[in-house]
């Protein structure tokens, strides 16, 4: 069965609205995705009929709520190929997942002077600042991979960067600016032989690509629900169970303990150890529904659709005079996020004129300032696609760019 984008769009009520008198053309899914009714309905039904706190009550509502929450965890585990639901830790978002990992690993590894953490110039600030701060706290040294001119990870100095001093390597799996999908096979092998842990920021890859954590070669990954049809306020840290079992807690409080006395506390096994306090229950259940929706359509089919759209968009954009694309110019090893510049026009102005035409793109440094610096620009305009994006929307973007050139011509 071929992928029917028009049928998919009917599941997303937001596409019925207009923006500034034009049909909504939403090209900002890398920022946050839109939500299908299937997710919205499940969340509403939960609040209306099953609401209770989880893991704390013997009563019926508490039991039903716990079942729904743990059921979502199990389905998310299956979705990413985890060995067990216990490998899925619910967090607030990717950012919290990465901060959890940075704090907990820093303590577990007793990170200190002489130790090294390796990241890349391609990171979102979420996978950059937590490691910078960890290094400042512990005296460890932060090092990083560069970016090549065509927007790929520069692995040419892999052997000098990842050495026996390296304790943690943390990299973006798919860049939120350049769209690059990093093949981490070589880096994973090098990290393993150096005895370093590998974390991947999968915020942009889990929503868009079929992904299997067993095959990926990482020890930990982070992703965020709102970029994959789920609500805000829910994210995931996945980790190998034997690793999670060794990691100390990050936030402390209710639900993460085994026993507490005034003299001391022992901690629950993962994932509960890392889920202090009442979690975002409805949001976790919503993310479970999102994963069901994505699974129903098939991640391979979704990816194929996005590749088609991306190829179309790369063609369309490169035929607009004065447009420069940052990142891989072909669809090989890239996903459906395309950043570009319009000669002589600041991205803010591009974004403003497109918005007047109902075309919603993101402008700015995309929380990845070093990526902009790498290409010597203060900001970029970014169009990003998802399972509901159509070629007609790409045409609207191209027409909008003609208008931009008229205003600033």
């Amino acid at each position, binding site marked *: 069965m071929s992928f029917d984008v028009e049928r998919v769009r009917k599941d997303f009520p937001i596409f019925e609205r207009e923006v*500034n*008198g034009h049909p909504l053309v939403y090209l900002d899914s890398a920022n946050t995705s839109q939500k299908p009714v299937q997710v919205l309905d499940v969340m509403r039904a939960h609040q209306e009929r099953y609401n209770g706190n989880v893991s704390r009550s013997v009563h019926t509502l508490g039991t039903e709520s716990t079942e729904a929450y743990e059921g979502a965890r199990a389905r998310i585990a299956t979705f990413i190929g985890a060995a067990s639901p216990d490998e899925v830790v619910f967090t607030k978002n990717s950012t919290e997942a990465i901060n959890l990992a940075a704090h907990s690993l820093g303590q577990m590894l007793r990170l200190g002077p002489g130790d090294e953490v390796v990241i890349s110039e391609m990171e979102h600030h979420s996978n950059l600042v937590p490691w910078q701060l960890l290094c400042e706290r512990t005296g460890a040294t932060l090092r990083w991979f560069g970016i090549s001119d065509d927007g790929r990870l520069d692995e040419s100095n892999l052997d000098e960067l990842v050495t026996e001093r390296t304790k943690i390597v943390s990299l973006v799996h798919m860049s939120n600016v350049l769209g690059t999908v990093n093949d981490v096979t070589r880096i994973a092998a090098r990290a393993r032989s150096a005895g370093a842990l590998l974390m991947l920021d999968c915020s942009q890859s889990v929503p868009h690509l079929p992904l299997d954590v067993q095959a990926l070669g990482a020890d930990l990954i982070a992703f965020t629900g709102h970029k994959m049809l789920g609500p805000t306020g829910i994210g995931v840290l996945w980790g190998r169970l034997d690793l999670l079992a060794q990691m100390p807690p990050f936030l402390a409080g209710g639900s993460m303990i085994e026993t507490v006395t005034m003299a001391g506390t022992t901690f629950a096994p993962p994932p509960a150890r890392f889920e202090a306090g009442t979690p975002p229950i409805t949001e976790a259940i919503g993310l479970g529904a999102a994963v069901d929706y994505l699974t129903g359509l098939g991640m391979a089919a979704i990816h194929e659709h996005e590749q088609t759209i991306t190829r179309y968009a790369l063609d369309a954009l490169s035929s607009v005079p004065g447009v420069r694309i940052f990142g891989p110019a072909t669809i090989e090893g890239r996903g459906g996020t395309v950043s570009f510049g319009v000669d002589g*026009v*600041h*991205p*803010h*102005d591009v974004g*403003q*004129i497109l918005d*007047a035409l109902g075309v919603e793109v993101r*402008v*700015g*440094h995309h929380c990845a*300032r070093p990526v*902009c610096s790498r290409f010597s620009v*203060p*900001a970029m305009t970014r169009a990003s696609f998802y399972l509901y994006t159509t070629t007609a929307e790409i045409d609207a973007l191209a027409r909008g760019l003609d208008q931009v050139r008229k*205003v*600033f011509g």
Partner: protein
Amino acid sequence: MLLDGLYQEIILDHYKNPHGRGLRDPFDGEAHHVNPTCGDEITVRVSADLGDISYDGLGCSISQASASVLHELLEGKDPAAASEIHHAFVELMQSRGQVEPDEEVLGDGIAFAGVAKFPARVKCALLPWMAFKDAAARAGVDVGVSPEVKA
């Protein structure tokens, strides 16, 4: 089009042909401001008598045109006059389009009245003015208290 209020001819003219752009020496006070959400940057230099105001920056048409208008309006003014204009501009930008600008005071600055209706762009327009205020303070010139700047 909806954008006519934002991209007035006057703004586009200042953007394409900025007045007084480029940093000059000597100066008595300098300030560098950035807009962390969008990465726009500006550096403003002033002499203690406001006889020379120079600037350089990276940014959208609104922030760059605003710097050009600032240069045109404030260079060579005495501190009291500069304060009055500064105050009027900041107030206009925070009016959400509810204040009728006074051309006598604001000159080409009145073209920014439309920008006040686009909350996301008000910061762009104010960036050079806030940098100017800091640079002037460092040069020992007090342009007075502006209305509180809200993001």
